[in-house]
Each structure stands twice: as C-alpha cells, then as structure tokens.
C-alpha cells in the first residue's frame, strides 16, 4: 500500500497525460449524451456541459468560495494535527517493541471502525463546526500516517543504524539521524494517503452534520432545494478537483524531496 507505483512502461510523460485526458473526455461525452438524450430526467442528471459551466460560475461566487475555505481550513488543520500526533506515536511504536505489543490490541480494535460512523457521536459530544470537524479529520487521517511511520521504521537498514551507533551516537540520535530520515518517504506517502481521507472526512462531516458552513454543507443544502441537482453535482466536481489537486501537489513534492529514495531503490544496489 505504501509503494509508489511506477508509471506504465513505455509511456512517456505526455503520453500519460494524453491517456488521462482521453479518459476524462470519454466520461464527459457519455454523461453529455446521456443527459441530452433524455434517457434520464434532466433535473436528475444534467449534461456534463451544464455541470462544468455551473462549476466555473461557482468559482467566482464569494459565498461558495467561503464554504471551500472553511472546508480547506478543517482539512489542513486536521491533517497538520494528525501528522503532529501520528509521526511521534509511530516512532514510539516502531522503536519500542514493548509499546507496540501493548497497544496492538487497541489499534486493531479501533482501526476497522469506519470514521464516518463516528460523525453522529462526534456531533453529540462536540457540537458542530470546526471543533467537531477537526477532531474527526484528525482521527481518520492519523491511521495511514501512523502505520506508514511504523512500517517505514521496520524498513530502516540495520547496517545504517549500526554505522551511527559505532560512531558513538545514542539510540535517540540514531532514531533522529537515521531512522527518521530513512522512514521519511514512507511517512510522506502516509500523509498523502491521509490527505485524501481528511478531505473525505471534512466534506462528509459537513454533509451529515446538518448545519454550519463548508463545501459539504453547500452540497447538502443544494440537495434540499428543488432543481438543486446542478449545484450538488458542481459542488461534487469541486470536491473531486480539490482531492486531485492535493494528491498531485503532494505527489510531486514527494518526488522532489525524496529523489534519493527512488534513485537508491532503482540503483545498482
């Protein structure tokens, strides 16, 4: 789950983009034809061109932009706090076997609970707005970061650790100077996975919570007005685009910062 999949062999970068664009075009066309041909009621499934037009319109709507900002604030805050909590915890679990065994059962109990299922409980305990949204985002996005940190520590080369130890570095310094940088690419991948989950949680919480602000709130409220399907879909398109953009930016950041990781893996070693 943590390994970066290599681009398909034999495809250049522009080739990859062209294929991606072709996929989008086909989907767009299918939705357009389906919408215009009257196979389904137009108010249920508007043609893709109308959705796109509305989405562009929303980009200039201050009210909508405010909602997006609220969602992104919850997302960023949640992801930041999750990273600040999960990385040190992962380092602790990954480097002290006794702690790892002790918390294993708790972790395995909590992990299968879908985070979305906790929304009603969180709403009950924490009310609404950022103060309930952020904790949920933190909870959900901590897992991939935590697991990738532990996994990354497992992968640290014992020879590299021995090397620094033989120069008299303490265990903590070895953790800081060898284990942490060595696990950093895995942690970064965990953060990228968590970023998507955080967005899902942020939007999802807003949709389900019933009142407040945010992109999810916008979508939920549009769904309650007659003929609001267009707004629902345009809002959803924006949610998707945000997710795509975030994933791309983080992916590119990873490639740039962890050039050594790829180079070493594919190297002669």
């Amino acid at each position: 789950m943590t390994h970066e999949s290599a681009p398909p062999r034999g495809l250049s970068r522009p080739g990859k983009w062209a294929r991606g664009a072709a996929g989008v075009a086909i989907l767009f066309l299918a939705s357009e034809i389906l919408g215009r041909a009257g196979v389904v009621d137009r108010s249920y499934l508007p043609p893709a061109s109308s959705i796109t037009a509305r989405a562009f319109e929303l980009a200039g709507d201050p009210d909508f932009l405010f909602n997006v900002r609220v969602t992104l604030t919850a997302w960023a805050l949640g992801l930041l706090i999750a990273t600040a909590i999960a990385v040190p915890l992962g380092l602790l679990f990954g480097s002290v076997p006794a702690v790892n065994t002790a918390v294993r059962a708790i972790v395995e109990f909590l992990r299968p609970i879908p985070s979305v299922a906790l929304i009603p409980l969180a709403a009950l305990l924490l009310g609404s707005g950022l103060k309930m949204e952020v904790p949920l985002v933190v909870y959900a996005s901590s897992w991939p970061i935590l697991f990738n940190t532990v996994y990354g520590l497992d992968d640290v080369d014992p020879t590299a650790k021995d090397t620094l130890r033989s120069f008299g570095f303490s265990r903590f310094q070895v953790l800081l100077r060898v284990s942490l940088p060595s696990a950093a690419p895995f942690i970064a991948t965990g953060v990228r996975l968590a970023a998507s989950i955080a967005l899902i949680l942020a939007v999802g919480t807003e949709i389900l919570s019933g009142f407040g602000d945010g992109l999810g709130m916008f979508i939920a409220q549009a769904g309650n007005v007659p003929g609001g399907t267009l707004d629902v879909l345009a809002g959803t398109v924006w949610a998707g685009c945000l997710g795509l953009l975030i994933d791309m930016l983080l992916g590119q950041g990873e490639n740039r910062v962890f050039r050594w990781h790829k180079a070493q893996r594919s190297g002669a070693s």
Partner: protein
Amino acid sequence: MLEITGLGHAYGAHRVLEGIDLEVGEGELVTIVGPSGCGKSTLLRCLAGLMAPGEGKVVLNGTPVTGVPDDLAVVFQDYSRSLMPWLTVRDNVALPLRRRGLGRSERRAGAAEALASVGLGDAAGKYPWQLSGGMQQRVSIARALAYRPSLLLMDEPFGSVDAQTREDLEDLVLRVHRSEGVTILLVTHDIDESVYLGDRVVVLARDPGRIRAELPVTLPAGRDQIGTRSDPEFVRLRAEVGRLVRGVAADLSEAASR
C-alpha cells in the same frame, strides 16, 4: 592498545566464539582471516561495543569496553547500506564529526580533507548512489578517517567490489595506515588479502570460533600488488595461512624448511 582476554560468545546453545586472546599494538595493522561462520563478525561487533560478549573482556587504551568506545570507527562491508542516501558525500563524511563537538565549518573542513586523502575531493557534492561501489567504499573509509579514531575496525571491507577496485582499495588502506598511523584491525575471508595487508595475520578456526594461529608477516613495509605477491615469502605465507584456514594441521617445521 587493544587487549582481548578470554572473549567468548554463544547464541543460545550455539557457541560462536571461545577463548579469544589477542593483543594489538599501537599503529599495528592486524588482519583476521577465517572460514565463513568462524564468528568474525561477532568478534568485530563485540570489539566495536555494538554487542556485549557473553564472557571475557575487551580493553581499549586502558579502558574496558562496555558501550561503544569513543575512539573507534568501523568500516562495514555493505557500503551502500552504511552510507546515508539522503546526505551528500560531504555530509556523510562530516556526520560523525558531530560527536567530536565540532562546528559546521570545522566539520566541513575535516570532511574535505578526508575525502581528498582517499582521492575523492571532487565528489563531495554528489550523493553516494551517484558513485560506483569502489568510490562508495572510499567514502566510508574517508568517513572513518575524518573521525580520527585510534582504532579502525574493517569488516570485510572489500568483499563486494570487483578485483581491480579491491587492489586499489587495499593499497589505499596501506597508504592511510602509513600516513595516519592509525591502528587497524581488518577482518577478511580472503587469504591473499590477509597476508598482503597485515603486519600480523590471525587465523581463526570455526565451531566454535577460536584463534588457530598468529603469524607475523615478515614482508617489507613497502608493498605493491605485483612485486609483493610474487615474493617467495608472500607465497610461503599465503600457503601456510591457506592450510590453517582450511583446517589442515600445518606442519610448521616442514613449512619453514622449504
């Protein structure tokens, strides 16, 4: 400077080392050679303080080794895993100097000097994975030298490089040994290498690992790959070490009379 007395170790019921007594003098280059599984690596880890031996003791410069000694550096066989891929060559070499409490510019200067001494002055800004295997091992050696250890341990340092590079690196070790006067304990499974490099060759036997013999190498100090290897004394010594490593009870008087 290094005294090992009665060192032994067992992993569970399996005894890997037994009754190792060895002394290494200041500035000596001692090679330890033995068949695979004779506990060479365990011995080295005990000396480096990376593990505590089950019995016996190690004294370095008059101080018993309990943790990792301050004055020691190790060069591992696996250079690609021993160097940090996220650091440049310069930063790799400079990293241990943090333990010496040196400032950033002093660390950099020390790294530059050590890299120049192994002929890699130009590679400082590169990353280890951009270098060949032989060059990477040079970086490891430079890192150890920059630390200015009184004892340098080398664990089969040339086990994973090609023959030509190996000879170059052997000569590099001889050169830095002469110029820096550092005491070196080098573990190898290569019989020729043990004789070529050593002032003294220690032959280990296996099951359990113990010292079978210690042979002084009486070759002249200035050694070179072609001349030294064809020296009759070299040929005699490597034959003797070879017999000892293979476990054939060498008849020393017979060997000496030849």
